[in-house]
């Protein structure tokens, strides 16, 4: 029977990784988190240096993004919001592609079909129905691909979230809805967003399972996502996953949280930041050495250096691009302005 306010799941407190994860997986997850962390930290620097535009910081959201997507296969689709802008890296997308998106360069606009990663969704929650439709469509085609959508706590207040999740539930679509509950929608706190005990409670209203995990516990996120993906693939329909943490960085480079944030909570959250937390676990298991960790960081930094260099080396776009891509078969008067 549907259960409100499910307990907050953690794995890293114990000594046992989820069954089936071998050492290689544990280290690969670590590599992915470090890659995302490095991308994010470098991007904030690049922004300060004027080398990329406004940027939506995802510092300490890496466990959610790496953990949830590790449960996917490459045929599965990812529907990111701006907060998951770099999630394509986990599918092998070049660093420069994502940097170019933040630089407003057309080469940052990848084709979702190439990576099974939808375009970065800027209008809140509007991609939720897309994920529902893609998942439903894959099911209709008899393919076993799953769609995983990422969105925030604030997104749950939008009609598009409601309509998309409800439609996925009704169609029994293989979809996984990952809510990044970082406690804030820019300056609006969770309690101004909902009166529900937990966001996972919303799942009950859609007749689908809702689970809550610690958003800084990469293995807890992974485990919940794997259960959800397995359920979806085996015809069990959608799952709602609430990944709980507290936004420990500004909403974006343009934002100054000092007026509204709880600084003590931020400090507490920084103290338990997700990469370090995972490294402690891995070391306790004897899986990770300082040398390995250092080399993973080094590789990631090298990738970023190469990425920004490649991005900056690209020729500025041709204004003619204005008139391409809008239509397959454009009206004759398109250039008429």
């Amino acid at each position, binding site marked *: 029977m549907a259960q409100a306010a499910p307990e907050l799941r953690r794995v890293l407190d114990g000594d046992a990784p989820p069954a089936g994860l071998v050492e290689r997986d544990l280290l690969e997850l670590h590599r992915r988190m470090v890659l995302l962390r490095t991308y994010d930290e470098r991007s904030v620097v690049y922004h300060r240096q004027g080398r990329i535009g406004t940027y939506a910081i995802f510092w300490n959201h890496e466990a959610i993004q790496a953990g949830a997507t590790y449960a996917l296969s490459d045929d599965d689709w990812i529907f990111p919001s701006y907060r998951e802008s770099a999630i394509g890296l986990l599918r092998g997308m070049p660093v420069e592609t994502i940097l170019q998106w933040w630089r407003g360069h057309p080469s940052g*606009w990848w084709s979702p*079909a190439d990576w099974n990663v939808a375009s970065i969704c800027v209008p809140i929650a509007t991609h939720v129905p*897309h994920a*529902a439709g*893609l998942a*439903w469509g*894959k099911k209709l085609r008899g393919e076993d691909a799953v769609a995983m959508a990422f969105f925030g706590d604030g997104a749950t207040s939008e009609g598009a979230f409601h309509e998309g999740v*409800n439609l996925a539930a009704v169609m029994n679509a293989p979809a996984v809805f990952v809510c990044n509950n970082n406690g804030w929608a820019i300056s609006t706190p969770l309690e101004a967003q909902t009166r529900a005990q937990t966001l996972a409670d919303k799942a009950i209203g859609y007749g689908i399972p809702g689970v809550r995990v610690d958003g800084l516990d990469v293995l807890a996120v992974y485990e919940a996502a794997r259960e959800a993906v397995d359920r979806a693939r085996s015809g069990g329909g959608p799952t709602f996953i609430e990944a709980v943490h507290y936004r420990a960085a500004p909403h974006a480079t343009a934002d100054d949280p000092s007026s509204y944030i709880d600084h003590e909570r931020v400090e507490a959250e920084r103290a338990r930041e997700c990469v370090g937390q995972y490294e402690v676990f891995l070391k306790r298991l004897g899986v990770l050495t300082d040398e390995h960790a250092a080399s993973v960081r080094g590789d990631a930094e090298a990738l970023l250096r190469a990425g920004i260099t490649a991005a900056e080396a690209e020729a500025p776009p041709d204004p003619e691009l204005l008139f391409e*891509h809008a*239509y397959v078969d454009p009206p004759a008067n398109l250039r008429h302005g």
Partner: protein
Amino acid sequence: MAELTLVEAVNDALHTELERDGDVMVLGEDVGRAGGVFRATAGLLERFGADRCVDTPLAEAGMLGAAIGLCMAGFRPVCEMQYDAFSYPCLDQLITHVGRYRWRSGGRMEFPLTIRMPYGGGVRAPELHDDSPEAYYVHTPGIKVAIPSTPADAKGLLAAAIRDPDPVVIFEPKLVYRTARGDVPEGDYVVPLGQARLARAGTDVTLIAYGAMVGVCERAADTLDVSCEVIDIRSLRPLDEGAILASVGKTGRVVIVHEAPRTAGFGAELAALIAEKAIFDLQGPILRVTGYDVPYPYWTIEDSYMPSVDRVAAAVRTLVW
């Protein structure tokens, strides 16, 4: 050739296109079990099954958003909005995604979805069953818009829309759903987007209209001792500028007619086009006969809101005396 009503022609087009392409599917509220509140989708569920003619939850934005995902999965969804004014919840998905997603993919993905809806007034219906929303749609980049006025065009334009690689919105004039009857080619039949139809040739004045207003213009022409050319533009985007400019070049006088409110309606775009490209052909002001900038009224007085034969004829007379 079969003689069909306009709504029967829509139904014929849907049967034909679902038959011809397994990727085409119909989505909407009450399109399946009930066959559509106007019976436009009647028979599709029985013929093609519940996976290809789907009764969606009551959520227009969710339906259109899901259609985008279905396109990503390789389908060609045809979304029915039950009535004009009930399409407004989907405008956000239309503007932010339907019109932009191909562009966003760097031109590497296609979103060949179709939205179709009954539109327009004069049907003695309760509030919000009478709107003419075409301007909201045609102002949106990335979208194409067509509006038939005859059964044959209703079939041919819808078929063109479904086969078109870009998103197309078809507005079906519900006022003439059952009164417009005409021969409709059987089987495969496409009327290409972007071609106006010369509804009636004339020499003195050009009447430009679409949907149910084409008939109003033709009846107005009948009452006048002035030679009126009536152009049914059929396709608002892409627009057949050549046909419009050629007619204006011939007549030098223009009356544009639509049901939608006047301000920033599509008639303004037609007037602006002519005022830019045919200004020296004009022998008088460009006139518009349109709905008013007020909420569509209770049906007891809707005939005073809708452009009428008298209002169109009066406009013509101010140009030719």
